[in-house]
């Protein structure tokens, strides 16, 4: 073991030295700065750079080439290892800061917002430079990446200038003096490095954030990223701060479990946050206000669809999720309280019934229980009925799920490999 460790340290050291372009550039980060590098390692984890800039399971961390699905087509992530030719080894610190905080590449062209620079702009320059400092210490990988694989007209980067004008507000996070330090730390993480809004904030038809509906839930990659505000209907209003911390730390809490894209986020990123930061995030999210819109009208228990849904639920779902819909804490999600179930957009709930799902395994919660697919067993009407039931049983209210919606989702899922 010691042999291997020494070996890898040696490679990294040499690599960093070879990879630094512009020898003796006084403006660039000093690699002796352990504090800065360690801070950068943590912030790179918080920002989850790894997730997009690494193809899973091929052993080339941060070398890019991962396909990122967007509503406008597929973008391929860039190589952010310190390789001088194909990575960011030749970039100056200033160029790195511009890319991360302004979405501007060294050649002056614009990044697509698949790179969440509209969030990262809230990070301090100091924090971004810390990430840069860390990235100079990782192993360089020579891997050219053709990043722009979007179809016309989205492949015209120049168009991004207009997009930036519409949707991008540059500027570092400004603390709200009326709020606690904890709240401000949480807001900084959620709005900045954590870029929660990238998935959870509703998007305009051009993919820009609808600022007024921040974190109120948005569809992505065949899922619906639920409302994570303090809303008691669809959001985290009925979660305690401890529930939020447990979810982000372990992937599980007494109500639900992380699955789909959030499972990856928990495994690669939030499970590695420090506890104070998770508490800060919980404080901030819980403070986001209730929705103004009206709650759905409850479905009468005696309606045919509710009765059919209840019968299916008892046969197929109750063994794990319980007759009372409460599941088993940390093992089987509570459908009575799950925000995936009660989201205004039922995409995730439909997907879980049709495809099944696997929750995330973390060091604290290694069980990673899964749910089977019911696509072969329940037709569209039956899936619609059982989901309408769970959205309206146990004193909850939700809009009914239509069989045609299930049908559309079923067709879309057929085409998805993930």
């Amino acid at each position, binding site marked *: 073991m010691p042999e291997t460790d020494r070996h890898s340290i040696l490679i990294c050291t040499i690599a960093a030295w070879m990879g630094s372009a512009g020898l003796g550039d006084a403006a660039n980060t000093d690699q002796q700065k352990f504090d800065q590098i360690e801070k950068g390692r943590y912030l790179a984890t918080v920002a989850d750079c790894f997730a997009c800039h690494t193809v899973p399971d091929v052993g080339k961390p941060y070398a890019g080439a991962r396909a990122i699905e967007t509503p406008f087509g597929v973008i391929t992530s860039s190589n952010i290892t310190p390789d001088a030719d194909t990575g960011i080894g030749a970039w100056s610190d200033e160029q790195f800061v511009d890319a991360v905080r302004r979405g501007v590449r060294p050649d002056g062209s614009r990044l697509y917002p698949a790179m969440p620079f509209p969030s990262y702009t809230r990070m301090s320059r100091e924090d971004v430079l810390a990430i840069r400092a860390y990235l100079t210490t990782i192993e360089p990988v020579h891997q050219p990446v053709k990043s722009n694989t979007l179809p016309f007209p989205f492949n015209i980067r120049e168009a991004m200038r207009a997009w930036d004008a519409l949707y991008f507000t540059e500027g570092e996070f400004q603390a709200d003096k009326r709020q606690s330090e904890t709240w401000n730390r949480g807001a900084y993480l959620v709005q900045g490095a954590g870029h929660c809004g990238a998935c959870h904030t509703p998007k305009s038809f051009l993919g820009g954030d609808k600022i007024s509906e921040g974190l109120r839930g948005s569809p992505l990659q065949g899922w619906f990223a639920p409302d994570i505000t303090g809303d008691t209907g669809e959001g985290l209003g009925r979660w305690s701060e401890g529930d939020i911390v447990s979810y982000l730390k372990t992937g599980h809490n007494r109500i639900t479990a992380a699955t789909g894209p959030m499972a990856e986020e928990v495994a690669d990123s939030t499970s590695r946050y420090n506890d104070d930061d998770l508490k800060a995030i919980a404080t901030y999210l819980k403070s986001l206000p209730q929705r103004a819109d009206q709650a759905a009208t409850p479905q009468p228990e005696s309606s045919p669809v509710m009765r059919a849904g209840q019968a299916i639920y008892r046969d197929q779902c109750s063994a794990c999720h319980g007759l009372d819909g409460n599941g088993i804490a940390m093992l089987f999600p509570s459908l009575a309280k799950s925000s995936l179930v009660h989201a205004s957009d039922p995409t995730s709930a439909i997907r879980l019934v049709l495809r*099944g799902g696997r929750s995330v395994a973390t060091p604290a919660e290694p*069980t990673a229980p899964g749910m089977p697919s019911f696509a072969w067993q329940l037709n569209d009407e039956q899936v619609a009925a059982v989901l309408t039931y769970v959205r309206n049983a146990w004193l909850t209210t939700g809009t009914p799920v239509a069989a045609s919606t299930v049908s559309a989702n079923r067709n879309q899922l057929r085409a998805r490999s993930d």
Partner: protein
Amino acid sequence: MPRKLPKKDVVIIGLGWTGSIMANELTDEGLDVIAIERGPWRDAPTQFPPNYVQDELRYRIRHELFLRPDQLTFTFRNKMDQTALPIRDWGSFMPPNGVGGGGVHWNAETWRFLPSDFVLRSHLTERYGASFLPEDMTIQDWGVTYDDLEPHYDAFEYLCGTSGTAGNLRGRIQDGGNPFEGPRSRPYPTPAQKQPFSHTLFAKAARDLGYKPFPQPSGNLSQAYVNPLGLRLGPCTYCGFCEWFGCGNYSKASPQTTILPLLLRKSNFSGRDQSEVIRIDLDRSRSHATGVTFVDTGGVEWEQPADLVILSAYTMFNVQLLLHSGIGAPYDPTANKGVIGRNFTHQTISSVNGFFDNKKFNFNPFIASGAIGMCIDEFNGDNFDHGPHGFVGGGYVGQVQTGGRPIQTTHVPPGTPKWGAAWKNAVRDNYLSTVTPGTGVHGSFYSYRDVYLDLDPTYKDRLGRPLMRMTIDFHDNELKQNAFLTDKFAEIIQAMGAHTVDKLYRKGPYDATEYQTTHLNGGAIMGTDPSTSAINRYLQSWDVPNLFVMGASAFPQNSGYNPTGTVAALAYWAAAAIRGQYLKNPGPLVHA
């Protein structure tokens, strides 16, 4: 020549209960461990999800989870002067296959053996005199005691979250538990499962007759549980599909639910499925294993070198692999010499069906779990005076009905026509009001000189290796024991209020086509004397000290309990010896 793989610290043959336990223990020790499994990878939510695993035709009748005899089978005969023929469809036992092994399809009845079981020959000789035992009975002491194993029974029960009521807590007898059990250091991790109506009625009848009924210890959990590895189990839903089936509800303890999710996270563990180990490789001295050779599904042979070999397959495959690898002297019953194949045993199972007035009794028999049940232990082991009865051994008896699955739960009173309208009517009339305990009489099977395993002289497997031959029959001692226990059991069923009691005695000859249990034991037994045992008290091969052999193949004879608790306790015991002694000074842990 096999292709050679990079050397590992440990190679484990078979990733069932004992393979998983050893892999977890030895990776905790920092060793680099690889497990090689003949069957497929199996994961609870993927391979046995709760929305289709309750399929009696697929899993019970068609043996979905078990080894296909086309891949490997055995030959069978009752007597030494007969010609054995290959088993072409499994019957009296079900060889497991695939990750999780028997731990996937078991009922999760999680018993401890009696303290006297481990010193059986000395105990019986002392109490009744040597001449009380049949001359050809070859029972032995184990070389390990209940007290040695107690912490390891405890470890397994807490791994599984076993549900039960303690009967003997550090020497103090507890109400509601089994008063005959050995002292346990702490209570079961979870309370006993709730009992359905017929099981409760059985307990009442037994109590009225002066017995002390108690709930069967169950690996189907009464409540949610998190085990010491941080893995979570859920409460059993009493669906009645345990034995033959995997559990996708996370409520049956199995390697999948209690060990593997954690094991797979360890960087010093790796596994290969669909890879059948065909030989344990030895160096020129024949006293040191260099690793194993396995064959993949493409027929390619691979050599996996390792410093330590853990043989943790099913009883039969353990013995077969030792015979094929030339480790230990094959047993010769005529000369009464040799060790590999010696003291092969099974179980002596019978049942009693009770038919009740369907206007007064509705048992809803489908509400059950694999290890549900109320039992009595008055007639197990040497818990009663065998002097007047002329046999030794015994078993627990109990209402342990595991469900009302539609194909096989069609019991009808004696005398009913076997087909047609009259049979259908009888099935309908009796389904809800019949007590069918299945393995209600769970008797011991002691060892004999002419019950053994060896290599068949005629039949070969697909790789050209001789099949292993089973020579097995019931002896008078076991048949007497069974008649006695079955009669006692029937008295209780009668006292429950049955109008008709159908005693289904176990009768000879041993029938390889009728299911008893999968509790085959022996053939590579543990002991204190290398001339009558294959492995020492730490499950270490006498002949090849860097080989440890797990499993019920170590049992010198079988007790009147389900074996898994003891199999797992022995694995923990061996793991402790490897971690505490062997690794510091690799070599024989016992000098004969």
